[in-house]
């Protein structure tokens, strides 16, 4: 939220006709779908993402949004319906949470392979069993190797803005891959904040009509999509998805620059946000709404003279490895807070810690210790004492005292 400042002089220059409303993260994304004039939306109930579909249903019922709003009989169909609608030229939206997202896994696999620019919302939720409604990031992270773009937002404003950015990025002809916006269950999906809602004309300027081009499935364009290719061609086709990842960061940078020009809200570096890092000795790093308690704890630690900062990762796919490594190499130690697990991984760390270590190995001139913390699973709060504890451990590592590479924080027994 610290980044959402609109320069006064710019405000004067352009009358953007913005409105302000007190809404949740889910509602913000529903409004973004309306502004983006989405054509086909598919819904299926699962908490906590489903509130977005409740809002969209109301928008359709009130005549504020014109789309085909289809309630599917399961997540598998939910994602298959929009996949085919997108192949036929429609702008599409759907989403899910936790095991619902996993139920759609087959469709999540084929969507990037078919070059479908689906924008989905993941209301992050712990996977069963045992049942839990609260946030955990393993659901969205399950598709990290498949060609999806993955971004985590931490405020309702960022959710709305990122949804608009998402359509521009995903539907860019150079990209044509799906994009999931992760919103932490409850902490963001159900928490209200004041959000600036841009005017429809502005959005229209920013977001051109989706053009499927020569890939359009229509009687005027006789093509066969995804025939059986086998070992003769599959590798070349996979290489095309790889080529997308090579340019993804550049495209995202372009779109953020244009977003800033159109709407006046600055996000700075699109890939990660730095908080009080300038003179920091150590930093904590994490994704999503844990940023709120972490920032508060950092302000408190700063009052005690402890130089700690925070890096919030926005984009997980593409992973801005070299850039992040360059950023992190200047600190004496890095503590990565994972709201996920990756059982049996190197050093038994979470997903993000493992990725950060990998990025540091190739991209950093000096390699400070990277500690992994597993924290806030199943919707458990990341508390101020938790953050202070993690900062302390990271400071110890910075002093050269060896620390375990993975620690569970805020866990009993």
């Amino acid at each position, binding site marked *: 939220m610290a980044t959402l400042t609109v320069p006064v002089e710019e405000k004067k220059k352009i009358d953007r006709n913005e409105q302000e409303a007190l809404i949740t993260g889910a509602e913000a994304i529903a409004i973004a779908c309306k502004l983006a004039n989405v054509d086909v939306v598919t819904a299926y109930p699962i908490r906590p993402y489903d509130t977005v579909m409740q809002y969209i249903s109301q928008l359709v019922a009130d005549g504020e949004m014109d789309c085909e709003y289809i309630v599917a009989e399961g997540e598998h169909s939910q994602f298959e319906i929009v996949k*085919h609608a997108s192949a036929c030229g429609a702008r599409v939206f759907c989403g899910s949470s936790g095991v619902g997202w996993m139920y759609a896994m*087959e469709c999540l696999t084929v969507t990037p392979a078919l070059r479908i620019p689906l924008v989905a919302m993941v209301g992050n939720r712990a996977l069963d069993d045992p049942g839990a409604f609260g946030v955990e990031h393993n659901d969205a992270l399950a598709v990290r190797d498949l060609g999806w773009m993955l971004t985590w937002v931490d405020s309702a404003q960022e959710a709305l803005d990122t949804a608009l950015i998402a359509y521009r990025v995903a539907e860019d002809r150079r990209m044509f891959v799906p994009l999931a916006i992760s919103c932490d269950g409850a902490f963001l999906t159900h928490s209200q904040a004041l959000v600036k809602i841009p005017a429809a004309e502005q959005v229209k300027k920013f977001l051109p009509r989706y053009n499927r081009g020569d890939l359009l499935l*229509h009687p005027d364009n006789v093509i066969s999509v995804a*025939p*059986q290719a086998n070992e003769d061609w599959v590798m070349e086709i996979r290489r095309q998805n790889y080529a997308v990842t090579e340019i993804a960061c550049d495209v995202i940078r372009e779109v953020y620059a244009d977003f800033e020009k159109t709407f006046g809200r600055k996000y700075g570096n699109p890939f990660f946000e730095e908080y009080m890092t300038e003179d920091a000795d150590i930093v904590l790093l994490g994704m999503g709404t844990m940023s709120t308690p972490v920032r508060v704890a950092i302000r408190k630690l700063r009052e005690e003279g402890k130089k700690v900062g925070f890096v919030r990762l926005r984009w997980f796919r593409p992973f801005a490895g070299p850039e992040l490594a360059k950023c992190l190499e200047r600190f004496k130690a890095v503590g990565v807070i994972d709201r996920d697990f990756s059982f049996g991984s190197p050093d038994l760390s979470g997903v993000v810690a493992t990725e950060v270590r990998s990025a540091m190995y190739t991209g950093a001139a000096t390699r400070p210790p990277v500690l992994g913390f597993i924290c806030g699973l199943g919707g458990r709060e990341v508390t101020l004492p938790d953050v202070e504890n993690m900062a302390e451990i990271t400071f110890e590592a910075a002093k050269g005292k060896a620390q375990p590479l993975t620690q569970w924080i805020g866990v009993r027994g």
Partner: protein
Amino acid sequence: MSTFVDEKPTQDLEPFKGVKKVPHEEYYTSGHRTCQGCESAQIMKLMAKAAGPRTVVLGSTGCMYVANTSYYATPWGVPWMHTQLGSSGSSALGAAAAFRVQMRKGFMKDEPINVIAFCGDGGGADMGLGAISATMCHPDYNLLILMYDNESYANTDIQISGTSPYGVNTSFSTPGKVKRIMNHRWKKNMAPLIMAGHPTVKYVGTISTSYPLQAMNSVRKALSIGGPTFIHCLNPCPKGWDFDPILSFELGELAVNTGIWPLYEIECGKLKLYGKTKDIANGRFKRLPVRDYLLKQGRFAHFIEEDIEYFQSKIDEMWDKWLVPGIIPLQKEIEADNPPSL
């Protein structure tokens, strides 16, 4: 009061009035590599011909994907897209929804476009049944789901599906030293299941490639009546059923003439039997013994006399005891069931 939504029909597709009136144009041609005598490929050809050029076809995984569309060698003369095994219902719904909304918003020329999704018996009667059922509940979308039924997962090595006949020898139900019959399931009665479960569906039909003109006209009616529709086609499979490909056509006829595969259409709730099935029902044609059909196929070669008799008794039951003979398996005795008065 009618339960049917008055939706704009997809296209004006009058029935072909005889074989000579069928156009020469093919929209499913060379390029596929299906087996000799493959009747499933035959229904693809008839389906595409009946639908014509303003059509989009969604094909779920199965023989008609794997053997049908090799990269750089597609047989399809209309746009075609692969869809996942259980997704024929959702793919058709997605395409129909996309066309409808884009035409409404002025992003696409407003014209009738046929949306057809096909599936095999594995994709339709097993994995995709839920999605098909959901799609059949959406009266606003014009689409056809055609299930080609070769009574097994014929592409993956011939395994039992929900429509495999009783006792059949497949690679998942081979007879052994102790157990002769490994498949105790009876064939899933798909068309009536769709009809009874989704009362707003305007058209459900069964067809056979041995009766190509009726098959094509069934497709044309399904596409022009409006709303979601369903067709179940029986397709003899030389590889899976183990017979000489020269018999494909004859086995299709025998399935009808023995009463195993009734031909009918249900249009806005009205049942119409056609072909030999109609003659069987009104007594003008005596059903042939199922033995004539079973013994021509290697998949029943392990049957002993009792198995054939049991099979025959189940078919007799279909025609003699069912409330709607050959179609609805409620027993007629229910009519005589008089509950005590209050």
